[in-house]
């Protein structure tokens, strides 16, 4: 579905959205770069840190690989929150990739907000390979924020 089609697509009614199951947990997808954030997440594991199981990581070489369309696609298919995480600006494994991510995604975040997706549902975070704690905190915060908002209904395809 293209963006134009998505904007036209029928939205779930408030009543439908209100029927949230007791045991509902948010579904959050995190696009992470291989070199920093994915490594930071591995380190959180190595340190046996504990965090909610609602986030799934999708490993990419660089956060610069994330096409904004992937993000929309995730919301369309049923994700309640999306994270894009990479190396800190200036530390990109590929020197400049995350500079593009930063510009592109911050702009995109405002666009999604304009389209009605709460900004808490789409976050951009820089987490280095040593910042296991920051990774855990990011996951905890994201889960909490998205759980508070409830399931995403905007642009969600029917039946999802």
């Amino acid at each position: 579905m293209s963006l134009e089609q998505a904007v036209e697509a029928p939205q779930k009614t408030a009543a439908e959205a209100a029927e949230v199951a007791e045991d509902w947990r948010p579904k959050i997808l995190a696009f992470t770069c291989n070199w920093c954030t994915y490594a930071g997440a591995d380190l959180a594991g190595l340190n046996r840190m504990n965090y909610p199981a609602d986030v799934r990581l999708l490993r990419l070489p660089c956060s610069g690989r994330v096409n904004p369309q992937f993000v929309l696609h995730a919301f369309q298919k049923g994700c309640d929150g999306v994270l894009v995480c990479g190396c800190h600006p200036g530390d990109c494994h590929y020197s400049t990739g995350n500079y593009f991510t930063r510009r592109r995604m911050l702009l995109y975040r405002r666009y999604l907000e304009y389209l009605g997706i709460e900004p808490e549902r789409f976050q951009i975070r820089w987490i280095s390979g040593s910042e296991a704690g920051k990774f855990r905190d990011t996951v905890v915060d994201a889960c909490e924020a998205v759980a508070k908002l409830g399931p995403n209904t905007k642009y969600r395809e029917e039946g999802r």
Partner: protein
Amino acid sequence: MSRIGVFLCHCGTNIAATVDMTRLAEATKELPGVVYVEENKYMCSEPGQQAVKQSIIDRGIDRIVIASCSPRMHELTFRKMLTDTSVNPYMLEIANIREQCSWVHKDKEAGTKKAIDLVRMAVAKVDRNAPLFTSEIPITKRALVIGGGIAGIQAALDIADAGFPVTLVEKEPSIGGKMVMLDKTFPTMDCSACICAPKMNDVGAHPNIEIMSLSEVEEVTGYVGNFTVTIRQKAKYIDYDLCTGCGLCEQKCPSKVTSEYERGLAKRKAVYKPFAQAVPSKPIIDAKNCRKFTEDRCGVCEKLCTVNAIRFDDEDKLVTLEYGAVIIATGYELIDWTSLYGEYGAGAYPDVIDGLTFERIINASGPTEGHIVRPSDGKEPKTVVMIKCVGSRDPHKGKAYCSRACCMYGAKHAHQFLDKIADGECYVFYMDVRAMGKGYDEFYMNTLQDGATYIRGRVAKIYPEGDKYICIGEDTISSKIVTVSADLVVLDTAMEPQESADAIGRLFGVSRDLDGWLTEAHPKLRPVETNTAGVYLAGTAQGPKDIPDCVAQASAAAAKVIGMFCLKALESNPMISVVDEINCRGCGDCVDVCPYKAIAMETVERRENSVWVTRDIAVINSGLCQGCGACTASCKSSALDLLGFTNEQILQEVDALCL
């Protein structure tokens, strides 16, 4: 239809303790394309790998998912394992159910659900994997070293000694760099020429090294293993094949010019060798100052030269050669303090000099034969003030960084001065003393023993009074204003990158940091590599450092080059970007975002809809592409994709997660 085998690793109890493996296996069996699911206690172990290989044969599996620890741990292990099977090593995905699941989720129910999701995502992705093939990139086993300072010299010698040919390109008439200008070197105080000149001679005489002096790199194409480099050899006006270096021309040349090597303290001729131990040990003609060129007169050298080596009609030559690897060792310059420090006289006071000029003054083979005298009147100075951090650690005026060699050469200069002038007084204004090398602090302590007075603080102003220079500064330990009436002032000025670093960086796609130093690929773990594969850094081109560090880094860079040259061929990374030529509309956005200069626009003529059209399309250089994928996200027409992480694969994963 793919035939996917999924192998679930228990990792002892590391995974099995918090993930219900039986449920995971049951759920996995239901996934589309999965023909076989197997569990093992340790999949990475030898028996574990054997079991996987056997199942591939027995079950006719054509791609696999391993659910285990992080791919950062064992992706390579399993890829290697696949090379012994019929399955392509890239038909593999790893579901990270240890670091990102069993180790972080105590709740078995939630952990098991997540593990199922992760496996489902991996299965969905591997379904769209395509076999990828590394190709062999041949290596031209010749190295290019740019810059003939001590770093370039060391690197060239190491590579040449290992048996590989080296071209050493130096922009000046002789190699040697700054080190050959120094008198003695800290902390051992051995004479710089005595340790540098023999190395220069070794370079000059080495059968594997070709020196291209008075030359600069002009153009670079290609990639690791196969750079094509065009070098401009500037006209020397002397035929080096004939010249014997007898020096008669230089003796008889009537034109006298200020010597750069002697920092303006002496004259040289228009046909000259910059210094006695120069390598190559042959002169050049400085056309700007030669009367033959400026006035069309003289020509004495031509008349006297017994071997007819003078060539007034010589021209710049461009040579193009192939190289497998490049080491950039272009060194440093001293900051132009005169434009920054009006309070120190902005260069108007002849006896306020920088450290390199002082090196020439105390040098036994220098213009004063090592007698310490003032440039203005030739008198012996009794009181010397040395000021450290001029331009260093001073973000308001100069650079924020520390230049690293100055604390030590400041101590060296104080020691040398007090050694030569028994009744001399030496005041050193400093911010801190950083003497962290081997034997360095001891050296500094000895200088204090020698009687040098260290005052913590910067000098705020210098002004002349009679034939003295009044230096006013604050002693920040006693909080008192200190005034010293000095005969000579030496400024330990900041190192800054060579002017040409910018151009060199651009030619080779090596970025520069905020201060202009060429940047290494990783500040800790890849200190001599750059982001351009096959291009390495050595010496002060990468940042301020002293000679021991330059030499160490040069040998490290050389080791990297030798290591590469010992390979039969390079293996290319197959996970790179590809262009869909039909969809590429030739906007060139991808060219701008590529950090490796791996994309170029090419004009092609092609038949489309039964007509011939000429248009621009992006072309990826597979040797340069490192597979970051930045171009793919910048492509408005989705004509670029990244192998191994294709749009389709990623969207499949997203879909699988959302099921």
